[in-house]
């Protein structure tokens, strides 16, 4: 039965084509963010179904069966499955890997060459070992009887014409988890965001969308990806994902606070010898003082440069920001392969910015 596989593959192709066509829309509108599952995203593609001349899903009147008086509401809840197929919006599940692939192809992103660092070991395990202790659910009956048989033969109690084997507790054998070394190149991403008063809701949406898509891409390039979120105004904090996207603070902006905290996190938890480190910082470009900006430049040049694969600075345009920080960075650190600065004017600019960030294949 290969026919359906052929047609199914063709269907997946069409879905991919449709997503690719609308990719820029998905990226800029961020409508996929609410549909993220553990390993996949469910994308509504109503336009994939063939249109017909037909009636709408909610008839003005109709016939039903059951109790109830005039004027009583009819519970139209889920109908019995299988009956009246139709009126559902077609949703297609696409894995992150596939989504990342589409993104990569559409934006022409190069594959990332992991740095030649010592690779991290993970302990993936399989039930290949045997142990003398364990839960009964993992008992290895054949090995248990084999042990009992051996003992029975050794002790001379075995009669081939009447082979009666009774395992005693010490004969029992269990399947055991054997730790296996898997070498994997791992990566950590630090997202740092300015949450000072000038960063509005729209600016944060942009950061959120961009982070989602960069995540998808980086995940496709590394087997495991750790993410650290840092927010800062005049001081910086490590926060969880939810806070990162929703927190709104006010106050001044001291970018160096975030850079220092980021550095501390890297050194404590993700030593650069073992990790591919990515750091992205988003702000509207206003900093506390020129002196703090100098401090940032020093940190980047002396501390981040030897540690990171890539440092990305994304400057989101806002009504209040001066945009000075990017100019300062560009001025002080021109032509550094590990540093990317990018300006994001509005949602439409996200795609281009992603390309700038990830287009270097580092």
């Amino acid at each position, binding site marked *: *039965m290969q*026919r*359906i596989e*052929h*047609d*199914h*593959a*063709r*269907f*997946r*192709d*069409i879905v991919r084509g449709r997503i690719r066509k609308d990719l820029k829309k998905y990226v800029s509108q961020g409508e996929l963010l609410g549909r993220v599952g553990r390993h996949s995203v469910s994308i509504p593609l109503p336009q*994939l179904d*063939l*249109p*017909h*001349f*037909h*009636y*709408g*899903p*909610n*008839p*003005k*009147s*109709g*016939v*039903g*069966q*059951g*109790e*109830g*008086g*005039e*004027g*009583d*509401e*009819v*519970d*139209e*809840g889920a*109908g*019995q*499955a*299988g*009956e*009246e197929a139709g009126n559902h919006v*077609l949703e*297609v*599940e696409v894995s992150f890997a596939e989504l990342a692939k589409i993104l990569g192809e559409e934006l022409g992103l190069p594959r990332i060459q992991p740095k030649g660092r010592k690779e991290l070991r993970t302990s993936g395990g399989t039930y290949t070992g045997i142990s003398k202790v364990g839960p009964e659910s993992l008992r290895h009956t054949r090995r248990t009887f084999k042990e009992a048989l051996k003992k029975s033969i050794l002790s001379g109690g075995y009669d081939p014409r009447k082979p009666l084997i009774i395992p005693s507790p010490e004969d029992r054998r269990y399947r055991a988890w054997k730790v296996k070394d898997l070498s994997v190149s791992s990566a950590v991403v630090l997202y740092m965001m300015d949450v000072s008063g000038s960063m509005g809701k729209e600016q944060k949406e942009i950061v959120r969308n961009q982070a989602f898509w960069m995540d998808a891409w980086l995940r496709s390039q590394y087997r495991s990806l750790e993410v650290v979120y840092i927010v800062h105004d005049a001081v910086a904090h490590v926060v969880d994902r939810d806070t990162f996207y929703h927190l709104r603070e006010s106050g001044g902006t001291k970018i160096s606070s975030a850079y220092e905290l980021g550095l501390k996190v890297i050194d404590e938890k993700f030593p650069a010898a073992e990790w591919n480190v990515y750091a992205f910082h988003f702000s509207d470009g206003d900093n506390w003082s020129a002196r703090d900006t100098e401090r940032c430049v020093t940190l980047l040049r002396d501390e981040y440069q030897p540690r990171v694969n890539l440092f990305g600075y994304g400057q989101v345009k806002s009504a209040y920001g001066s945009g000075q920080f990017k100019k300062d960075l560009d001025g002080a650190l021109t032509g550094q392969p590990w540093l990317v600065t990018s300006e994001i004017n509005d949602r439409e600019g996200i795609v281009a910015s992603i390309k700038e960030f990830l287009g270097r294949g580092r």
Partner: protein
Amino acid sequence: MASLPHELEVARAEIEKIARGYGLDFFETIFEVLEDRELNEVAAYGGFPVRYPSWRFGMDYDRLAKEYRYGLSKIYEMVINNDPSYAYLMRSNQIVDQKLVMAHVFGHVDFFKNNLWFSPTDRKMVDTMANHGTRVRRAIDEHGLDAVEQFLDVVLSLDNLIDPYSVYRPRKSQPRNGMSGDGSPSRQSVPRIPVGQGRGYLDRYLNPAEALESERKKLEDEAKRLRRDPPEPERDVLSFLLKRAPLERWERSLLEIIREEAYYYAPQAMTKIMNEGWATFWHSRIMTRHVLNDSEVVDFADHHSGTVHASPGQVNPYKLGVELWRDIEDRWNRGAFGEEYDRCEDAERRARWDTGAMLGNKKIFDVRRIYNDVTFIEEFFTEDFAHEHRYYVYKRNPRTGKAEIADRNPRLVKEALLKRITNAGQPVIRVVDANYKNRGELFLEHLHEGEDLQLAHAEETLRHLHQLWRRPVHIRTQEEGKERILSCEGEEAAPAQ
């Protein structure tokens, strides 16, 4: 094609014997046991694994496989109208389910074979479908996958624009354009009643001026009608396009295939209530009276009640069907029909009515032969039935958007029910003018019966229609009670052809 496992073969032979004993008369029925993956595949192909390739079958498969995996639904029964008939069983089902499905399937195949509305269907459809597959594959080889796929998508979005009744009417040959002869019908004279010699005075009584005038007008209208193109509104839009749209030979061939398959499936939609009811009626009778053993009763009851489950705001064809069949059998057994019974107003007496006629069995077999859903409901959905089974009409409250019970008047219920099943729940759409504005534009009309079309889809469909007609296309319909004409003029920069 493996034969059935022993246990199922024993059950099959037993059930077949019982079914024949009841007078069910079916084609040879070949059962196959399939894995869930295979069954989903067959279902995605509408029962025919030999069908033409299309991504749409892949899409259906995707959905079925997912629903099965998440336990949302699973297919119990799949049978195709063919001689011999093929039916599929899901391997993972319990034996009691397999028996239920077999009994159900024999009911369907009896219906396929004997119901009048299935008589024009192709009983060698498995072969025909395979041939269609070959033709489509050849077209793909010659014209490329993209071109064929795109054309199929266009045609498939129009595949409900057929006239299911046309196959039962003798083909009338119509003169193509207007009248024969010299073709100036307006000069045709109105026949007069001859007046005898010397009786000229009678003329103005026998041939009064008004009558002559109205006769002339009738003739003129007739002539106008015949000059129209098409002379009569055409409901078989696919056939009209086949004859008149500027198509390439391979496109015509694909259109023919889609139309043929649409007509093959049409009777199943026209008899859904009867057919499902009939199969349910027989599986219930065969299982409960003969086949079930003690250990199976609970599972059977569980699955049977799932089949005839009523959800509010919906009509379950299995339930409505089986209840109607039982009602008919019961009434004809009691002799509760005919003039005397109809005239009886006393509900008590009607309920206890019994002449000992015992005509139920004969009656249901007669009914399954000649009725379709519309005539079935029209004839047998009685006031008593509507009352007893608690049917109601609901209306959508325009303020809340929620459906509310509006009436339990059996007449209104029946009316609403008939409206829903007329044309198998599809809107009636006809070609009324193929030379609209005298510019070769195509004009369709939707016979609006209270329910609006989904306009966004209609516009999209119109675009597809335009790709076939290659001239502007229009459809007249209604929205919120007001007339609405949707048009697709085609691409702005379309080159004049």
